[in-house]
């Protein structure tokens, strides 16, 4: 299905304009990724206002390239100063740094750059082949299936995070609550607007996003001032590839396994590259012949985790394109951008805008291939980038945030939303509430509510209708299992523990 549109897709992608956009976004992504504390999601959020003025394909290209580069580049500070640039590198930061201390920084970053590219290309291929097929199946979905699918996504977001399940659930409810502000879609009644006309259309998504990701980081930079240690020097960047082929060939099964794990985790709504790298690192350790070196400079673990986090990035686009349900917080942003472009994600987009979809797929491959040459460049410049103190960047980032949240609909209310939700996010993070479920709640709130209300109207208020169709029932069962299993485990563990204390 995709192949007949390849010709038109190449025409859309292979232009000087696209090359310029991808190249500058790659540099931007590399920069943001290698400054600790600036996350890939934040980079994407800051890019959104710029993408409003681009066509759909360049807009997506900008986001995809930035995110792919940022996720790779976050390995650089992990290796040099033992601080991961983004959460996606947190799983293997001690391995990277141990290799650096052993004088093998070239090898470590060489593995990181190539494994990232391989994982990313794998994930993109899965996206290219699986998404159109899934789209065909999902053409038959009704509001019942969509309701369960959305609930499954929200469940995954709560269960898979590293924070406490209770706090993740509350964070999710906060997001859903924010989404229900504004005019109700079915009855037109204004809800929770406090009489403010600027809230009638709901809480603007982009300012919310910029605020929740950037403001907490800025407050911490201004107030907490945790300064990073000095960077370790890098020798000749071209030594990166020495003996690399051997390492990768030895771990070829690892590459295949972790790319698969990463893609699947990416596809699961709510779980992104950070969780992918944690899980595939753990799996790698479990099956390794040398589990004792993990955390102490394991090349094998590095291959696994680096491939997984970049493949998850592409996998996350599968549910985003097919169902309009984000696979992670970056795709949550992309969905927002696609809606603004009139390219409403969902199965129909594969039929109506097949050329654009094929072009977007090509962009994925290109962005991941670009990781290798541009990554080398970034490693060469890394020492300089790391010398820029975050404190100097903070006021300028704030400037970008203000401009970004104003320009969405040329209204200062966006700036206010950004600050208010940003302060909320700071307080949440300080108290162990993760922000990602909130973002997902904001994006999916309308989808969940609309499908719930439509389904209830269709079934005359009877809950039985939610289980009558086979796929809906299957999804419902999955959601139920995910919720029940941890509770059962918790109760059995408690029983065991109380049994031990009584004996």
């Amino acid at each position, binding site marked *: 299905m995709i192949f007949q549109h390849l010709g038109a897709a190449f025409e859309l992608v292979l232009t000087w304009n696209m090359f310029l956009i991808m190249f500058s976004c790659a540099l931007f992504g590399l920069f943001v990724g290698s400054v600790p504390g600036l996350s890939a999601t934040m980079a994407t959020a800051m890019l959104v206002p710029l993408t409003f003025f681009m066509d759909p394909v360049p807009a997506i290209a900008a986001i995809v390239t930035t995110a792919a580069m940022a996720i790779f580049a976050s390995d650089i500070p992990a290796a040099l100063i033992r601080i991961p640039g983004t959460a996606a590198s947190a799983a293997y930061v001690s391995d990277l740094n141990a290799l650096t201390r052993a004088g093998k920084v070239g090898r470590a970053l060489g593995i990181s750059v190539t494994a990232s590219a391989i994982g990313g290309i794998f994930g993109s291929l899965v996206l290219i082949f699986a998404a159109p097929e899934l789209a065909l199946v999902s053409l038959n979905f009704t509001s019942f299936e969509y309701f369960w699918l959305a609930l499954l996504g929200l469940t995954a977001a709560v269960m898979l995070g590293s924070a406490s399940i209770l706090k993740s659930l509350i964070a999710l409810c906060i997001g859903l609550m924010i989404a229900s502000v504004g005019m109700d879609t079915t009855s037109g009644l204004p809800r929770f607007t406090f009489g403010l006309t600027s809230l009638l259309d709901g809480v603007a998504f982009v300012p919310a996003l910029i605020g929740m990701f950037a403001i907490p980081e800025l407050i911490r930079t201004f107030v*907490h001032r945790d300064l990073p240690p000095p960077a370790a020097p890098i020798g000749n960047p071209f030594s990166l590839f020495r003996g690399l082929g051997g390492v990768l060939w030895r771990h070829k099964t690892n590459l295949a396994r972790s790319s698969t794990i990463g893609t699947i985790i990416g596809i699961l709504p709510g779980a992104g590259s950070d969780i992918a790298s944690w899980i595939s690192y753990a799996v790698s350790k479990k099956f390794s012949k040398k589990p004792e070196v993990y955390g102490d400079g394991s090349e094998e673990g590095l291959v696994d985790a680096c491939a997984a986090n970049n493949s998850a990035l592409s996998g996350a686009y599968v549910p985003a394109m097919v169902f309009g349900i984000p696979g992670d917080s970056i795709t949550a942003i992309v969905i927002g951008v696609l809606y603004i472009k009139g390219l409403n994600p969902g199965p129909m987009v594969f039929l109506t805008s097949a050329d654009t979809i094929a072009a977007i797929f090509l962009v994925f491959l290109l962005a991941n291939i670009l990781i290798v040459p541009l990554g080398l460049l970034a490693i060469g410049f890394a020492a300089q980038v790391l010398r820029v103190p975050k404190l100097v960047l903070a006021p300028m980032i704030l400037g970008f945030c203000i*401009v970004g949240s104003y320009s969405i609909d040329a209204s200062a209310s966006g700036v206010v939303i950004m600050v208010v939700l940003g302060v909320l996010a700071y307080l949440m993070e300080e108290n162990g509430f993760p922000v990602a479920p909130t973002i997902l709640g904001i994006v999916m709130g309308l989808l969940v509510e609309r499908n*719930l209300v439509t389904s209830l109207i269709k079934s005359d208020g009877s809950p039985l209708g939610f289980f009558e169709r086979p796929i809906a029932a299957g999804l419902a069962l999955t959601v139920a299992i995910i919720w029940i299993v941890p509770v059962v485990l918790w109760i059995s563990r408690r029983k065991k523990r109380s049994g031990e204390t009584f004996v």
Partner: protein
Amino acid sequence: MKVHDSVIGALLFAFGLWVLATAWSYPEMPGQSIGPGTFPSVLGALFMAGGVLLAITGLRERGMGLVMIDPGWRFPARFAAAILATAGVVAFAMVFETVGFPIGGFVLLTALFILSGYRSPTWIAASAVFVLAVHLTMTRLLYVPLPAGLLKGIL
């Protein structure tokens, strides 16, 4: 700022109660048992339940004060920078159209640089160049109508 889980739980409970009360005040759709209040009521109930659970687990854990503040907040300059970056930006938003981005942004950035310890004229120049570059890129290249405010007619 870390607040004890039991306090957060109580606040969430109160918030849930308010959401529930507001949602119940919404009219139902004619002939339907559901309406604009259905979904928010579910959320309100979840907030109340979550608040109670959080308060209970919070009460079990001891050894933390009701409120703990990061030591960074005790430095007046850092405190002022954080307030400027939040409340200051809201105030800036209120007069965004009249003051404009170039002047307002320049004042904000310079103040933040000074509060962060970058006091030399270089940094004042840096904020001016940065704000001007962003303003011109947005308005001339991307056609974002950033207000020029006080500098209307000049920029």
